[in-house]
């Protein structure tokens, strides 16, 4: 077991990635991810991490570099945020199509414009269909654990897909908090060396990222979809193994006082713990409130979501991004579609909140519950609202 220490979360993530003995990092710094890049480069420069730290001139180059390095058989890592992720966008589906087990931290930050450097999920949401495995961390410890697990999941022979670990910018990245750092021995035991399926080498030529026309393209897309769906078995197995070894459990959907709850709220990322305090406050007042935390965004955990919310009367889905002119926030529309065929489903409300770093307090969460409970006729169900917006 590792020692409990106080660390800034980005530094802790970089330390965790170093424990995974990466061969290569290609990172371009961007707030609020920069400390990951800085600390990794320090570890390499100080000789504490035997890896190639590739300085690149943009995030497009960073992703291109890790694609190349991963193709050559290197355990490859990158990290980005916001505009950086947008610049990587065109390469993300290529990484997954080439079945390269790259892992990436995303220090979630609002996408411009207007220019904003603070936290929301508008950077990751447009990447939804890139064919990556996407997980969200709720606190610093989870950011560390998920970063290590990501390599094992990505590199498993039944997965071979890139993974992004989403870590809310500032709320998590810039927080000094207690974390338990696994030891090198523990990580070595948990994470075997990377054995690539095929590698690029001048002496053994192979083609990666080939051309495919209409005769094969559909089949390749189906294969990729199957691969992402199938990865769930490995994700669950890796999380089981982690729980046995480190005594911290991870599930695609986690709940808090949800079993007997009439009213539920669903969060993703760092909002979960604050929402938990609101649940406690409401329970004291006799309100049967509960919390559902969505950790695994892709592959989407349909069965677990259905099981977690089936007994509730009302469900609040919270979103940290906007689908302009669409059916509501991206998480809301996903949950609604997952429950469409269910004969018994709660009335679903959607609050879009915490945009561009707007603070969300326990009081806000309590207010959301009070508002849906007061809506006795479910008039506002199936609609979305910008929580706390000034008009």
């Amino acid at each position, binding site marked *: 077991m590792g020692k409990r*220490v106080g660390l800034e979360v980005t530094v802790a993530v970089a330390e965790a990635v170093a424990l995974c003995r990466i061969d290569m990092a290609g990172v371009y710094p961007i707030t609020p991810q920069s400390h990951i890049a800085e600390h990794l480069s320090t570890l390499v420069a100080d000789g504490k991490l035997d890896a190639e730290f590739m300085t690149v001139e943009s995030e497009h180059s960073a992703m291109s570099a890790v694609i190349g390095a991963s193709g050559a058989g290197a355990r490859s890592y990158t990290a980005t945020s916001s505009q950086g992720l947008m610049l990587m966008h065109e390469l993300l589906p290529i990484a997954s199509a080439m079945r390269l087990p790259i892992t990436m931290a995303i220090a979630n930050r609002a996408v411009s414009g207007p220019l904003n450097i603070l936290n929301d999920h508008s950077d990751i949401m447009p990447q939804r269909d890139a064919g990556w495995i996407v997980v969200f961390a709720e606190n610093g410890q989870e950011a560390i654990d998920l970063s290590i697990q990501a390599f094992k999941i990505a590199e498993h022979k039944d997965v071979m897909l890139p993974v992004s670990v989403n870590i809310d910018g500032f709320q998590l990245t810039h*927080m*000094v*908090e207690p974390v338990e750092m696994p030891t090198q021995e523990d990580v070595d035991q948990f994470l075997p060396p990377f054995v690539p399926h095929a590698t690029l080498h001048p002496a053994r030529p192979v083609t990666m990222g080939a051309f495919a026309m209409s005769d094969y393209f559909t089949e390749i897309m189906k294969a990729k979809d199957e691969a992402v769906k199938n990865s769930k078995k490995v994700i669950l197995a890796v999380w089981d193994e982690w729980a046995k070894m480190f005594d911290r459990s991870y599930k695609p959907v986690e709940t808090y006082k949800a079993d007997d709850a009439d009213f539920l709220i669903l969060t993703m990322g760092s*909002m979960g*713990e604050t929402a938990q305090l609101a649940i406690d406050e409401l329970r004291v007042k006799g309100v049967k409130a509960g919390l559902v935390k969505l950790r695994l965004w892709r592959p989407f955990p349909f069965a677990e979501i259905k099981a977690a919310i089936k007994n509730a009367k009302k469900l609040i889905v919270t979103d940290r991004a906007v689908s302009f002119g669409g059916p509501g926030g991206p998480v809301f529309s996903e949950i609604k579609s997952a429950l469409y065929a269910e004969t018994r489903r709660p009335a679903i409300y959607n609050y879009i909140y915490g945009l561009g770093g707007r603070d969300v307090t326990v009081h806000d969460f309590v207010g959301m519950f009070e508002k849906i409970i007061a809506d006795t006729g479910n008039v506002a169900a199936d609609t979305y609202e910008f929580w706390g917006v000034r008009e």
Partner: protein
Amino acid sequence: MIEVRWHGRGGQGAVTSVELLAVSAIAAGKYAQGFPSFGPERRGAPVAAFTRIDDKKINVRSGIYEPDIVLVLDSSLIGLVNVVDGLKPGGKIIVNTHKTPEEIRKDLNFNGSVATVDGTGIARQEMGVPIANTTMIGALLKVTGIMGLEAMKESVEHRFGRLAQKNLNAMKRAYDEIKIIN
């Protein structure tokens, strides 16, 4: 849980102080969060930083609006920033200044507990620099009793190396010399 809001100017080391304090509290077996006011930082501009310390796991991740303690690293901010904003009833304010607590109480038009110490003077004498961020940790520990000065030793040594002892000496002097009125 104790919540502390630090007021300083960019470059005065408020963020370093909240980090050192959180790391030390965690090493002492407590739970803590240390975080900056999120956003762009500019040298000389008013900035805030925050610390939460508790004996049990801290779940809240929103900002601190009703601190128990306000610590002012730069007294020129008084009158410029409403430093007592949201301070809890019974809350305390600590100011780095050569003025007496009574004078600061008058300046702030504030009735609660005020503590003052000439942190900049101490920092100049002990370290040769007018940067009082670590010095004022001593003042905070005295006023709050969160933990003893010895709890800071390891993190200060880790951070400042050969300059650590001077920082610790300055911290000790602020601890001893602070004047408090309740």
